[in-house]
């Protein structure tokens, strides 16, 4: 079998939105700016874009899954130190798509208990730091990926006590 060509490395670096939103970084969630126009040269209509979330010290060891069946789910974060979520059609990130400007990682509290195959966007269990990248997956495997983001450290302040009078 011919080896699949390695996925194209796009220069885009995922980052948090620059706007001053008080909810963009909490103890268990964080927000990312939605990449617009990044995957268009490589994407077909049937491709999907995934978000890879990994602990910052495990990001170098992450290997792109060869197919959708090998995608590490949210539940395996403690053991695999990474997971993939936010499976979206590539058309949603196209240049012409009218989209919300922000993606929220960790906002779905209802999943995680089910043993379903749907990708879960559950709250992050620890402050991290985490690194993320976007991965464009086609029928035959990963086609393109962005660079890893800078480490994102979640808020740890809610462990403190209230102010004294």
């Amino acid at each position, binding site marked *: 079998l011919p080896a699949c060509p390695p996925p194209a490395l796009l220069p885009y670096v995922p980052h948090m939105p620059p706007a001053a939103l008080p*909810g963009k970084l*909490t103890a*268990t969630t964080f927000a990312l700016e939605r990449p617009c126009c990044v995957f268009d040269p490589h994407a077909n209509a049937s491709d999907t874009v995934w978000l890879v979330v990994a602990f910052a010290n495990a990001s170098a060891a992450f290997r792109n899954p060869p197919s959708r069946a090998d995608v590490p789910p949210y539940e395996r974060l403690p053991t695999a130190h990474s997971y993939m979520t936010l499976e979206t059609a590539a058309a949603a990130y196209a240049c012409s798509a009218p989209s919300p400007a922000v993606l929220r990682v960790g*906002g779905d509290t209802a999943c995680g208990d089910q043993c379903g195959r749907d990708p879960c966007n*559950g*709250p992050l269990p620890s402050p991290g730091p985490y690194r993320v990248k976007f991965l464009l997956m086609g029928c035959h495997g990963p086609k393109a990926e962005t660079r890893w983001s800078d480490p994102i450290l979640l808020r740890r302040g809610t462990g403190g006590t209230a102010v004294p009078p």
Partner: protein
Amino acid sequence: MCGIALTAECIFFVSDPHGLYPLLEATENDDIYAAAWIGIFVGFALFALSILGIVGVIKCNRTLLLVYIILMLITYAFEMASCITAATHRDFLTPNLFLKQMLERYNKSDTVNNNDKWMTEGVTKTWNKLMLQNQCCGVQGPSDWQQYMSAFRTTHSDADFPWPRNCCVMNDKGSPLNLDGCKLGVPGYYNSNGCYDAISGPMNTHAWGVAWFGFAILCWTFCVLLGTMFYWSRTEY
């Protein structure tokens, strides 16, 4: 006349038009309310005594005037105590006090006894109403819920509730206009102001109103008393 005015003013404060009394009650130091209650009774007493005084002057009756003077002095002392209490306890109401109370009591689920439960329910209902009516969130802002640990945080997950639902801008039916926008903190979908102004404004007016109006009445009553004593010393049996 002054008596009636004082009574009216203190009844207004005691009726708690802004609904903030539960917050004071939970601080276990509601002396400015006690001061207002005393103000009501003092005002009424002043009114009754003034009738007595007028009768005594008309009838040139020395004993009646003596009774009037003594009762006025007692009332005077009460009103003085009430004014001083209201003035000094104003300094007790700081942002940190309400912040600590809000973080410890709002939506607290494990209350130890009935008194605790009563105060917790009072604080929770008052804050819910406050945030809804004044379009505000927290004491200094929604970041209060993110920066500090709270009783609310133990029962509501950070991912679903970075801050309480009432911090969201609501539509006509009482549900959030845009829940995701509210959770993220997008301007227009959440209340970014703190509620401290909405709390301290009425409470300060209350404390200053009771204190300074009371002092003004005391000054006026002092003059009237001096005049009466002078008149008493000049009348004969």
